[in-house]
């Protein structure tokens, strides 16, 4: 007993020492690359554009609730977070905050009183935002009405509810620091890098995280499994890498939510929300800057992690034949007899990136739940994909996906019914 207490005390001392040692210091260095678009705008308008690019409203608004009043659930491996109210309500929102408080939240992940924030709030990205831009965002939020809606407590698994543990997490994984321009690159590239890494917080979904939920900052081999979807890697051309695309195509996909032509792209799941709520409203020059930066990302190698196949080789011909029948009955009408697709009506499945990705959850969820591309200004009447969970069994869905992944030049491993059932968890997004 005595030994245990001694050990505990020693451990606590070590933790405290580590926390002190690694305590992130406020580093207000660096200037944001000059905005190419918003320099002439007044502060509030500039703030509105940044808040839109960050899609703050997306997480901080529950369906049917008032904008920015919080309450949306964010499921994570550590439990469910509920976004807080960030309206001007003094009791529940941030009505009593000053610009310094807002800056500390974005830059340093801490709320007034020193309360440490969970990195579900992507301050690991927002720390790159310049002080002037933080002030502009704050000025814009100040113009919005106060909404007196109480915050919900997060429902976290043990021990993640212990907020003080964040001190250790921050020591390990967080260094505050404003974006610093890279003089090797153009102003447009720097603007794109600043937006992508900072306020647009793309890496919050598009990079894999370690077991403690931190984005792996170096040699990150993978996109991220988030919100029940897989956000494909932006560095790997076989996933969502766009290094071979024209900048105009990249910007169009981000603005329209869909792209036809030599490179075809579709946004769905959480990315459709990002396009609908945020990117389609972004300034054209900012989107172009983002495109320039995304195109320049170093090419990463496709993942070919050994994958549990779970299908006896002898059964593959039977599964393929069943899948072919399901395809003929339910898919060929729109996607074509040989997976060639029909322009924007239905994407090609042959050589499709989503179909062939190592992480199959997106393909599985598209068949299960279907969905429409976002109804953007450039594509206001999108075509959609029917949900098949009401009419097809897990076996049928697995067999048709196995058929699609193994036909017309596609050569990806089979999907088994367990994969389909794994894709049924989590909220639709």
């Amino acid at each position: 007993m005595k030994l245990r207490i001694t050990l505990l005390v020693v451990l606590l001392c070590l933790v405290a020492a580590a926390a002190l040692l690694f305590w992130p210091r406020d580093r207000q260095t660096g200037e944001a690359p000059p905005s190419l678009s918003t320099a002439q705008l007044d502060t509030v308008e500039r703030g509105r554009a940044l808040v839109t690019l960050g899609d703050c409203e997306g997480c901080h608004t529950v369906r049917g609730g008032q904008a920015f009043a919080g309450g949306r659930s964010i499921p994570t491996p550590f439990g469910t977070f509920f976004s807080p109210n960030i309206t001007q309500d003094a009791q529940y929102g941030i009505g009593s905050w000053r610009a310094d408080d807002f800056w500390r939240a974005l830059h340093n992940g801490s709320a007034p009183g020193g309360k440490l924030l969970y990195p579900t709030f992507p301050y690991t990205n927002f720390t790159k935002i310049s002080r002037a831009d933080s002030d502009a965002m704050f000025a814009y939020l100040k113009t919005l009405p106060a909404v007196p809606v109480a915050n919900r407590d997060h429902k976290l698994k043990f021990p993640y509810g212990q907020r003080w543990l964040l001190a250790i997490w921050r020591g390990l994984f967080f260094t505050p620091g404003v974006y610093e321009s890279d003089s090797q690159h153009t102003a447009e590239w720097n603007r794109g890098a600043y937006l992508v890494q900072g306020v647009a917080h793309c890496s919050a979904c598009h990079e894999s995280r370690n077991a403690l939920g931190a984005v792996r900052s170096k040699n990150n081999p993978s996109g991220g499994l988030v919100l029940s979807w897989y956000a494909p890697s932006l560095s790997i051309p076989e996933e969502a890498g766009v290094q071979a695309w024209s900048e105009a195509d990249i910007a169009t996909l981000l603005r329209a939510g869909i792209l036809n032509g030599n490179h075809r792209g579709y946004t769905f799941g959480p990315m459709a929300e990002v396009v609908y709520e945020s990117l389609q409203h972004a300034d054209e020059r900012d989107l172009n800057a983002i495109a320039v930066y995304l195109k320049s990302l170093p090419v990463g190698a496709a993942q070919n992690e050994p994958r549990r196949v779970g299908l006896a080789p002898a059964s593959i011909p039977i599964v393929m034949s069943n899948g072919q029948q399901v395809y003929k009955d339910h898919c060929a009408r729109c996607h074509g007899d040989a997976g060639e697709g029909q322009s924007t009506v239905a994407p090609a499945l042959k050589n499709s990136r989503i179909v062939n990705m190592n992480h199959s959850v997106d393909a599985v969820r598209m068949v299960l739940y279907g969905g429409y591309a976002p109804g953007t200004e450039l594509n206001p009447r999108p075509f959609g994909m029917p949900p098949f969970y009401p009419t097809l069994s897990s076996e049928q869905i697995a067999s048709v996906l196995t058929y699609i992944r193994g036909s017309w030049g596609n050569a990806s491993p089979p999907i088994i019914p367990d994969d389909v059932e794994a894709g049924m968890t989590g909220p639709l997004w």
Partner: protein
Amino acid sequence: MLHMRKIARVLGAALLVHTLTLYAADLDTAEQRALPCLPCHGKEGRAGPDGYYPRIAGKPAKYLLNQLVNFRDGRRYFPMMNYLTERQQDAYLAELAEYFSSQKLPYDFVSAQGVPEATLARGRILAKDGDKSTDLPACSACHGDNLLGALPAVPGLLGVSRSYLDAQLAAWRTGLRHAKAPDCMANIAKKMTPADIEAVTAWLATQAVPEGLGPQASVPAPQPVECGSIS
């Protein structure tokens, strides 16, 4: 250089309009766009085999639009419908509503066999006359003399399965389904006893739907209750 960029941008925008509309004209239809609705709502908008998903063919377009908007904005809760509608604009949802509203399809016969006479009799009274003692207006006072709905936004009550009707009244009672305030159906459902709900849905679901008729031209006057969704 700057000049070239400008030209490229203009060309890019022109190309964009072209590439986004590059599909065969015969697919550029509301019908093609409505395909994702069919696995649940049935071919051309008739209810599916398990009867829970409602028939949407032939319902007033404004009613269907109201429901799509309610799903999108969180006044009605059904994850699949919330997901399908959440990133679409009013004009597009109205186009889909118009499409299903214009579908005129025969109704299936539903037998009343096995439903007690007394239940059906009580159901008929509630539907056609209402019950002053419990302050319940007749269904027909808003949903039309023949219960086939009233333009622009009141839905018909015939040709819809009993399980669907039961589920909606229950959802209004528990606050899961909402309409624009004042939410008249929520107020009515909360006044109904479980026995009354059982009776009225049993009677409604087993009525033959008159051939060749649709919603009446306007809501009967005077309306017995105030409804935010039809004003």
